[in-house]
Every structure is written in C-alpha cells, then in structure tokens.
C-alpha cells in the first residue's frame, strides 16, 4: 500500500508540472480563442533564454528578467505579425499557424542560444526528503514539492489577476465577446499583447521548472504534448481545470505505467512498458465521449 501511495503522490506531483504548461494554453485560449500549439516551443525558448543569458555571464535573477523581456517581446511580435493578420479566419487556421510558429521557434531558438543540452541550476536539489523517507518509507522529491508550491502560487496569482485587476476584467470581457469588448472601448490589440506576455511568463516559469528537472534541451518542446490531454480533460477555458486535469493525468499515467503492463504481460507475454506515452490521450479521449466539453469547460451551443 505504501508503494501505491508513493506512485500516486509522485504522479500527482508530476501532474503539477503538466498543469504548469497547460496553464499557458488556457491563458491564451481564454482571452483570444486561439489554441496555441506553440506553447511547448515557448517553454523551450524561455528555458533556453535563461540558460543562454547565464552563459553570457548574467546572474540568475538578471537572466530571468532578460528571459521575461524576450518572451514578452516575442509574444507581442507574434500578435502583431501573425495573429492580427489572421483575424476572422477559422480557428483551425489559427491553430495550424501556431504549429508553424512552433516550428519557427524550434529552429530559431537553438540558432541563437545553441542546441546542446545544458543543466539549469536553480539551487533546489532533486533528492528525497529524509524525514518522509524515515517516517513513511516513501521517496518524495524536495524539488517536486517546490514545483507544486510554485504552481500553487502561480495559479493563485493568475486567479487574483483575472478576478480583481482592471486588465483582468478586460481580459474576461474580451474572452466573452470580442465585439462587445471593442464597442465599450477595450483595446483588443493591447489586450492580446498582454495575454501573450502573460503566456510567455507562464512558459518561463514552466521552462525553468522543467529545465531544472530534465535539463534544457529540445525535448522540452514535448512538454506541450503532455499538456494536451490535461487540457482536454480539464476543459480549454478553465484555470482550475488545468490543475485538476494535470493532477488526474499525472496520477493515472504513473499508476497505469506501474499496474497495467504486468496484467498485459500475463495475457500476451512480452514487454509492455511505455504506456505513459499514450495512456493520457486514450483516457482523455474516453472522457470526451462522455463529456465533450471537459471537466470544467463551458458547454457551447451551436447556432445555424
């Protein structure tokens, strides 16, 4: 039973990491209705900028600020040169444009900062907490707990930002209805630029956590693929959905990875590892069949 809880908690904590990336998706979808496939590439770009600036001799705090500036500028440029020109196109065209954007970043970022994998030191060690190990005989990494804390703070900040600030209210208005927001004098373009800036910030946080965990390398772009089932499960428009979805996906994929292969081995023989790769997708897919709008998503009504 101890082992079960260890796997469960490990899964929940890695789910927090997925949720961090998924949050970036939710931010942009909520405010502009764009499904931003490039979020994973943005995570990669953010982590690379931090490491790249540190290699040029900047201390960590300066590197983070510089990376934030880079991400914001990048977000504004995206809004100006790509999205603004695609207004009124079907959402699928916007989605495909962000796939192009993802490729663009994946090509440009390593040209600027170098493509070799590097470590990112945040000063948090990735080792089991001795107290938990002694008392409950469970391996829980200190790093994971910090990541969970960071995610919690980030979500709380975003929620407060959305709920109580002027800009947050404007963002919600734009999300509800572009035209109505425009007609009461909310500057749509500025709002979108801000949203992409915030998404860049979320990508920066996610990139630093993932980079510190797995090293800064091209594989970071795949974090987006991990975040997608989380999104479907939680609903595209819900910040809490991203968190809950992340926890469910993280926990269930780790449990599946441990408990399903032996069963299949009994049935068919052979080795059935690597279920993690597809299990979240199939889980999300089955869930969609029951509830197409996700756990916290808004049910939309089609009109002819």
């Amino acid at each position, binding site marked *: 039973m101890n082992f079960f809880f260890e796997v469960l908690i490990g899964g929940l904590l890695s789910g927090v990491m997925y949720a961090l990336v998924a949050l970036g998706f939710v931010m942009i979808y909520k405010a502009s209705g764009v499904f931003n496939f490039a979020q994973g590439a943005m995570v990669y770009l953010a982590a690379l900028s931090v490491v790249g600036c540190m290699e040029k001799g900047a201390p960590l705090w300066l590197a983070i600020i510089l990376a934030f500036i880079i991400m914001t500028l990048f977000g504004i440029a995206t809004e100006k040169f790509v999205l603004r020109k695609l207004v009124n196109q079907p959402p699928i065209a916007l989605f*495909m444009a962000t796939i192009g954007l993802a490729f663009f970043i994946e090509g440009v970022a390593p040209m600027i900062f170098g493509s070799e994998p590097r470590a990112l030191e945040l000063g948090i060690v990735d080792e089991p907490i001795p107290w938990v190990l002694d008392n409950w005989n469970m391996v829980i990494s200190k790093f994971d707990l910090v990541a969970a804390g960071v995610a919690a703070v980030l979500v709380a900040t975003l929620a407060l930002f959305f709920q109580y600030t002027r800009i947050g209210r404007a963002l919600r208005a734009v999300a509800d209805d572009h035209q109505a927001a425009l007609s009461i004098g909310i500057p749509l373009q500025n709002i979108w630029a801000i949203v992409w800036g915030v998404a860049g910030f979320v990508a920066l946080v996610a990139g630093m956590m993932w980079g510190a965990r797995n090293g800064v390398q091209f594989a970071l772009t795949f974090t987006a693929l991990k975040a997608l089932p989380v999104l479907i499960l939680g609903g595209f428009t819900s910040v809490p959905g991203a968190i809950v979805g992340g926890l469910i996906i993280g926990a269930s994929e780790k449990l599946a990875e441990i408990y399903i292969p032996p069963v299949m081995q009994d049935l068919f023989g052979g080795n059935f590892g690597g279920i993690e790769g597809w299990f979240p997708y199939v889980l*999300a897919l089955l869930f969609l069949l029951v509830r*197409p709008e996700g756990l916290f998503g808004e049910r939309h009504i089609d009109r002819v």
Partner: protein
Amino acid sequence: MLYREAGQFKTTYAADQQLFPIRQDRIGVITLLIVAFLGVPMFASEYWFSAILIPFLIFALAALGLNILTGYAGQLSLGSAAFMAVGAYAAYNFQLRIEGIPILVSFALAGLTAAGVGILFGLPSLRIKGFYLAVATLAAQFFIVWCLTKFPWLSNNSSSGVISTQQLIFFGHELKTPVEKYLLVLSIVVVLALAAKNMVRSTTGRAWMAVRDMDVAASVIGIKLMPTKLLAFAVSSFYCGVAGAMYAFCYLGSVEPDGFSLEMSFKILFMIIIGGVGSIMGSFLGAAFILLLPIFLDIALPFFADLFGLPFSSATVSHIQITVFGALIMFFLIVEPHGLARLWQIAKEKLRLWPFPH
C-alpha cells in the same frame, strides 16, 4: 491562357459534368500521364527514381488522404503517419501469412485495414470537433506506434518492431529496379487520385464539404453526420494505408514503427497547407514542395555561406530548415490560405486574359 476555350459549347449534361470540361485540359492531362509513364523512365536516373520520384508519389498519396479528411470533410487530423504505419504493417502481414497473395491485393487489404482503424479513431468526431478532435487523433498517433512496437506478432517477432518487406512479385515477375517500382507506384497513385477527384464531386464529396463548412447546418438540410464523417475517416485512412504500404514496399524496403512519427504526420499536414487545403492537385504540389525544399536548402545554404564566408555546420542547416518550414506555414496561412493550388489557378486566370489586363 495560351489556349482559349472559346467555341467549346456544352450541349449535354454529360459534357458539362465531365472531369476535365475543357478540351485542352484533357489533352494536357493525357500528355502529362504519357510523359510520366513513358518519358520519365527513359530519361531519369536511378537516383531520381529512388530518392525523389517514388517518395514524392507516396507522400502525395498520403497528403491526398489527409486532404480528403481535413480539406474536404473539415476534420483536422494529426495522426496520418500512424495510419501509414498501419498500412505498412498490414501489407507485410498479409504477404507473410497468406500464401501466394498478389501484391496488389495485399495493398488493397492493407488500405482496408487502415480504413477500419481509421473508423475506430474517427468515432470521437461524432461528439467532438476542432481542436478537441485534433488532440484526440494524437491518441491514434501514439497508441498505434506503441502497439506496433510492443506486439511482436505484428512484426513477426522482430525484437524492435523492424520489418523487412518481402519481394514485390507482380504477376509472376519480380519488381527489382527503381523504374519498375516507380511505374507500380505511379499507376496506383494515378488510379487513386482519379478516384478521389471523382469522389469529391459526387454526392459524398458534396456532403463532406457541407459538413466541413458547418456541420449543424449540414445536418439540418438532411445530411447524416455519422456516416458522412466516418466515411471521410475511412477513405482518408485507406489512402494513407496504401501510401504506407508502398512506403514500406516500394521506397524503404525496411521500416520501423518509430519511423512513422508525429513529425511525419506534421510533414503531411504541411504538405496540404502549403499545397492547398481542399484541392486534389494541391496535395501533389505540396508534397513536391515539402520534399524538394530540404534538398534545395541542403545545396543552397552551404553555397551562400561560402559566398559570404560564414561558419556553417549541418546542425545549422537543419535549424534553418525547421525555421523555414515554420515561417512558410505562417506565410501561406496569412497570405494565401488556399496554397499553391490557388496560386496556380490565379496564374491560369491571368493568362486567360493575357495579353489584355481586363
């Protein structure tokens, strides 16, 4: 155009509805086919066949399959490479397990197998659409590749899932040289492309387009959504499956499941975006463009680097390639969402009036 269609009057419905209504277009298509079947084998080198022409035709067929699903029926899929994998492995298994089965039959059966799998993964499209569906097709992508790696039976107990394809026996004659393989691939692609061209202007094709433009409205005017969508998935997967079988048998000869990666699915998606979403010819143009661009960059980039004395590595070439792909996708979506096929159409219309501007 350099020719004019003036004087060609259509007096029957049959004449109005034929595939290529303008006489010069018919002549043009027939000339193209003659060149492809007779002219090219006489002049092209072996490198051209095995490195450019065969993959071009195969990817064009896969792009055609995705175009039917995404361009005509409006269901975005990111898992086309997985259906190619199904086709490749199915063809291999039919050849392996059924004694003396003709290669064309096993290609057709491979296509049907892929169609079956496609229907299975198309089922969610009845309840979800748009991005949700795109993400759901990723499930097909990862699940199928995983299955092919993990179930040893599918690859005849090969440890890593790699299969080496059997000999291509075509009516008792073994196809060995690239020219023969090229002719086989070309024949299959021509037949399937004509079939697709006909399909999209039939009732089925019109129903697909109605669903693409607005599925609620389509169902209101009496199009049954379920069979229409599932048929699109089936036909699309059939095309991808046949393309996959040919990819294994006529192009590489030995394939592994991981070769049919998400990256390949994206490549096929890029082909239809650049070539033209919702256009048969666009699939061919896009496939040619996406396959030739890296070859062009490989040659051109070092040349320019030498010219300006810049330091250059192969890693940089691949980064530039990815960047160019990404930039092109955004460029096309912004400037010409209907792709190269539309540019070709515009050129034709300009030429029709030439030399008079109005």
